[in-house]
């Protein structure tokens, strides 16, 4: 099915953020029972659960605004790659624990700033969802930042691995702060967040953490974009094939 996301810019905003959380939940879901110790399996599951919880609230709100056939699960389970508007960062594969940590860290910094701003949204319902999400993101950031430090300033091997992970995902961080044109009105009305304005604070937190972790900020200025307009890396298609398999195989069934 096609969900009419363009008819309502707020729907577009809600779905975009929900897509981020859904896709990262899916990646973390792949990793449950694969973490280096039981405490981390628990933490990974916990973070994944928070992400899907926020996604459900956002999709639910979007579906109400969208009307018609739109529903939480239709957004998640019945849209194609080109219709997903998640950032490229969250669809990147787990690779190893260092990649899970680095990807999570950059995303967590972004989300704490995003939800902090959206919790002051003039749209009360969005503000409520954001306030809850902010609390969770703060906890996620504390966790991922602690691991950035442990891995960066741990052993030679952990340092090498986490630096490699930072280098690998760095090019997907810029997109998080690229404003979506359709949002300008929402930002002007105080509903949406001015994501570009969050970048200096992101840089400050990231630089301070990398320095403390004895890691180097990648010098390559190249930044990939496209996720917000449905131009994804090839990873997303496989992720969706797995996530949507049941709904695609048994159309119309109730679970």
């Amino acid at each position: 099915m096609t969900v009419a996301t363009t008819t309502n810019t707020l729907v577009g905003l809600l779905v975009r953020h929900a897509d981020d959380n859904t896709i990262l939940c899916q990646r973390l879901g792949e990793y449950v029972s694969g973490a280096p110790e039981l405490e981390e399996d628990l933490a990974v599951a916990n973070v994944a659960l928070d992400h899907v919880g926020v996604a459900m609230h956002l999709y639910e709100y979007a579906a109400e605004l969208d009307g018609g056939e739109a529903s939480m699960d239709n957004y998640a389970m019945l849209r194609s790659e080109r219709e997903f508007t998640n950032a490229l960062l969250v669809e990147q594969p787990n690779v190893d624990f260092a990649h899970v940590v680095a990807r999570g860290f950059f995303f967590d910094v972004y989300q704490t700033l995003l939800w902090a701003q959206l919790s002051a949204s003039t749209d009360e319902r969005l503000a409520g969802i954001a306030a809850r999400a902010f609390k969770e993101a703060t906890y996620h950031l504390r966790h991922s930042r602690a691991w950035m430090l442990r891995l960066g300033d741990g052993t030679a091997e952990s340092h090498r691995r986490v630096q490699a992970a930072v280098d690998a995902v760095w090019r997907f961080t810029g997109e998080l702060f690229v404003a979506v044109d359709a949002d300008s009105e929402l930002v002007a009305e105080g509903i949406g967040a001015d994501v570009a304005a969050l970048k200096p604070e992101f840089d400050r937190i990231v630089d301070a953490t990398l320095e403390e972790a004895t890691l180097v900020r990648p010098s390559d200025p190249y930044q990939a974009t496209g996720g917000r307009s449905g131009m994804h890396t090839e990873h997303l298609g496989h992720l969706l094939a797995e996530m949507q398999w049941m709904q695609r195989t048994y159309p119309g069934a109730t679970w």
Partner: protein
Amino acid sequence: MAVEHQVQFDRTIEADEKIEPRDWMPDGYRSTLIRQIAQHAHSEVIGMQPEANWITRAPTLLRKAILIAKVQDEAGHGLYLYSATETLGISRDELQEMLHSGRQKYSSIFNYPTLSWADIGAIGWLVDGAAIVNQIMLQGTSYGPYSRAMVRICKEESFHARQGYAILMALAKGTDEQKAMLQDAIDRWWWPSLMMFGPHDSDSTHTEQSMEWKIKRISNDDLRQMYVDQTVPQAHYLGCSVPDPDLHFDEESGHWNFGAIDWDEFWTVVKGNGPMNRERINHKTKVWDDGAWVREAAVAYAEKQASRSTKIA
């Protein structure tokens, strides 16, 4: 001295009071508990695998969220039970090593594969349901830390069993394909879940001594009968049958009589030749080995921090 200790221990058991970690206990009591609680902890952890197998394919976001929460609970139960085992003077690393080398076991039920979404419901309803019957009994076990762990774990397990049954109810009300999926899952999980209670009392090597020590309060066969009695009507309520042609209700005793258990299958799986034994342990050891550098980094970082704070002080 040893005699006084034994008398005190016997009195505590006799009075239905709890043995605590600092109390004297017979070596056999300690080793039995280590074996049993560790096996329970390992089962929670290995049991994460067949369920995590469906996290990425859960049919709706809500089902996905509930399943993640359940697997997270199991990791928590594992941690809690490892802590209870550590009170008996053995380390988590040693327990982990014994699991990987096959010297300690986990519940054989997790050596069966989860082949459809219905299996996630069947694990919640049948497997966690069987675990609850056993664990309710273990709330009254004589070792304090184990008993208290069971009280806490039982609460969460009953939520798991309910969510499992809810998954199956949705299938029972669904399409023909969903109903077939449901019946197939029951057909595959029924007998293995009956085997979860272990060998017949007459063949159980540990039962008699464990009952005397009040580690175990109800025998394998009695627990199994309780389980069958509560579960058969639930299967019928789903509009399903259980794969046992000999099953019938005995009006006189008020119990469901069931057919002979295939003990050859039971021992085959216990001895390592079930459908998924190798995969479960291989996954566990691979993850553990792959994560060595992470655990080493955490230790190295903690040591650096400690030496830094010493220098500052």
